[in-house]
C-alpha cells in the first residue's frame, strides 16, 4: 500500500528525470551531426511536407467556421462588418493555427514516431544500433526533434494563410463580410507581435510533440501491447503538454 503510494508520487518524477536525461543526451549527440544529417531531411519530409494536406484542410475549415460564428455573434447595425476580420485574424494567428496544427501533429506525427521507435525497441533494433557502436539517441531522436522544431513553424505559417483565406472566402460567399472589409479590419487591428508569438508557440509545440513522442517510443516495454500503449500515451501526453505550454506562453508573453 505504502509502496504503491510512493510509486504514484515518484513515477512522474522518475519519468521527468529520464526525459531530461534523454533530451540532454540528444543535445550532446549534436556533435555527431555528420552521422544523421541525411535522416534530418528525411524526417523533415515525413513530419513537415507530408502533413501539409491535413493541416491545410483543418485550417481551412477552422478559419471558415470561426468567421461564420464571429459574424453570427456580431450581427448589429452598430458594429462595422470589418470587425469580423479584426477578430478572426488575430484568433487564427494567436491561437487557432498553432493549437489545431499541434493537435493534428500530436496524432499524426507523435503517434507515428512513438510507434516507429517502440517497434524498434521491442524488436531489438535499437539494441542493434547501440551494439554496432552507433549512438541510437543521436541517430533516431535528434533528427526527429530537429525536423519537428524546423517544420512546425512552416506548417503554422501555412495554416495561418489557409485559415485566413478560408475565413475571407466563406465571409464573402455568405455575404457576412465582403473580402475588402474583412482585410481592412484585419489590417487595422494587426499587431506585429502576434505572428512572432505564434511562431514562438509553434517552435515550442514542435519540440513538445517530437520530444515526448520520442521519449515514449524509445522507452517502450513489452511487445505489441507496449507499442500500442506508447503510441496512445505519446498522442495524449503531447496534447496535454500543448495545452499547458499554450497557457504558460500566453501568460508570460502576452502580459508584456
Amino acid at each position, binding site marked *: 500500500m505504502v509502496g504503491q503510494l510512493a510509486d504514484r508520487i515518484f513515477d512522474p518524477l522518475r519519468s521527468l528525470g529520464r526525459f531530461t536525461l534523454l533530451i540532454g543526451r540528444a543535445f550532446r549527440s549534436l556533435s555527431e551531426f555528420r*552521422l544523421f544529417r541525411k535522416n534530418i531531411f528525411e524526417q523533415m519530409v515525413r513530419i513537415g511536407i507530408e502533413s501539409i494536406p491535413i493541416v491545410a484542410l483543418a485550417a481551412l475549415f477552422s478559419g471558415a467556421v470561426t468567421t461564420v460564428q464571429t459574424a453570427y455573434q456580431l450581427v448589429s447595425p452598430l458594429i462595422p462588418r470589418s470587425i469580423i476580420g479584426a477578430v478572426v485574424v488575430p484568433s487564427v494567428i494567436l491561437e487557432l493555427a498553432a493549437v489545431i496544427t499541434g493537435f493534428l501533429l500530436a496524432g499524426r506525427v507523435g503517434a507515428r514516431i512513438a510507434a516507429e521507435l517502440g517497434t524498434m525497441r521491442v*524488436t531489438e*533494433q535499437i539494441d542493434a544500433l547501440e551494439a554496432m*557502436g552507433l549512438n541510437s539517441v543521436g541517430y533516431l531522436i535528434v533528427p526527429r526533434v530537429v525536423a519537428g522544431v524546423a517544420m512546425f513553424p512552416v506548417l503554422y505559417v501555412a495554416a495561418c494563410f489557409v485559415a485566413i483565406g478560408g475565413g475571407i472566402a466563406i465571409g464573402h460567399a455568405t455575404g457576412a463580410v465582403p473580402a475588402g472589409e474583412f482585410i481592412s479590419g484585419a489590417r487595422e487591428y494587426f499587431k506585429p507581435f502576434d505572428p512572432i508569438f505564434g511562431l514562438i508557440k509553434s517552435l515550442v509545440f514542435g519540440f513538445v510533440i517530437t520530444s515526448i513522442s520520442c521519449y515514449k517510443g524509445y522507452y517502450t516495454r513489452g511487445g505489441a501491447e507496449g507499442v500500442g500503449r506508447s503510441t496512445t500515451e505519446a498522442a495524449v501526453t503531447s496534447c496535454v503538454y500543448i495545452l499547458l505550454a499554450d497557457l504558460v506562453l500566453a501568460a508570460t508573453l502576452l502580459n508584456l
Partner: protein
Amino acid sequence: MIVVRNIHKSFAGKTVLQNASLQVNEGEILAIIGRSGSGKSVLMKHMVGLLKPDSGQVLVDGLDINTVSYRELQKVRQNFGVLFQGGALFDSMNSFENVAFPLRTFGKLSEIEIQERVLKCLEMVELPDVGTKLPSELSGGMQKRVALARAISMNPRYIMYDEPTSGLDPETSNTIDALINNLADRLNVTSVVVTHDMHSVLSIADRAAFIHNGTIWWVGTIDELHTCTDPVLIGFVKANEYQIGPQHAAAR
C-alpha cells in the same frame, strides 16, 4: 579477451545475476547455457555494454567498459558483432542495405568497396541473392543469416549470438551451427553463443558455461561436460534429451 567479474544484476527487485564471473578466451567458441529466463542473454548484453551491472566489472581487452565514457564504449562496441534473437534487422531497409549499414555509417570504404564487401558477407552466410529483399520477405532462418552477415560486415573480433537457432527447424539450425563454426575458423573471431539447444553446444562449442539460479554454476570444456557429475547440469542436459558421458565424448 572478455572477463566478467562478480557481476550482480537485478530488475525491479528480482535478482537475475549474482556474483557471476566468467572469462571468454581469445579465439574460442563459448556457449552460455541454461534454462529460459536464467539470465543468459542478460549476461551476454553485459559483455557488450548494453546493460550495466549493479555491481561488478566487465573487462574487454582489459578495459572496464562500465567506467569508460560513452564515446569509448562506442569504440569498444565496434569490435563486436551481435546476432540478436529475432535478427533485429532494420525493417525499413532491404537485406543489402542492412548489411551495408555499419559500413556506410562507420567505414571509410567507397560505395564500390561496400558493395563488394556486402556481397562477400552475404555469400559467407550462403545467401548471395537476397540483397533486394526486405526482412519481412525472408524466412526466420534467412533473417538470422542476413543479420549474421551484418554482424560480420565490420570484421569484428567478437561475435555474440543470442539464441541463434531458437525457433528454427533442425535442418536450418544445423546450417546456422555450421556457419558459426565456419566463421570462427575463417575469421578467427572469439564467439559467445547463448543457447539452450544442447545439439548446438555439443557440435560447435569449445567450452560451456551453465547458468543456474543467477550464478555461473559450472564452466568447462565440452569433454569435461561429458564427464561431469553435477546433478543440476546433468538434469538440464537430459531435459534436452541428450546423453552425456565418456562413451558419448568418444563418439563426438
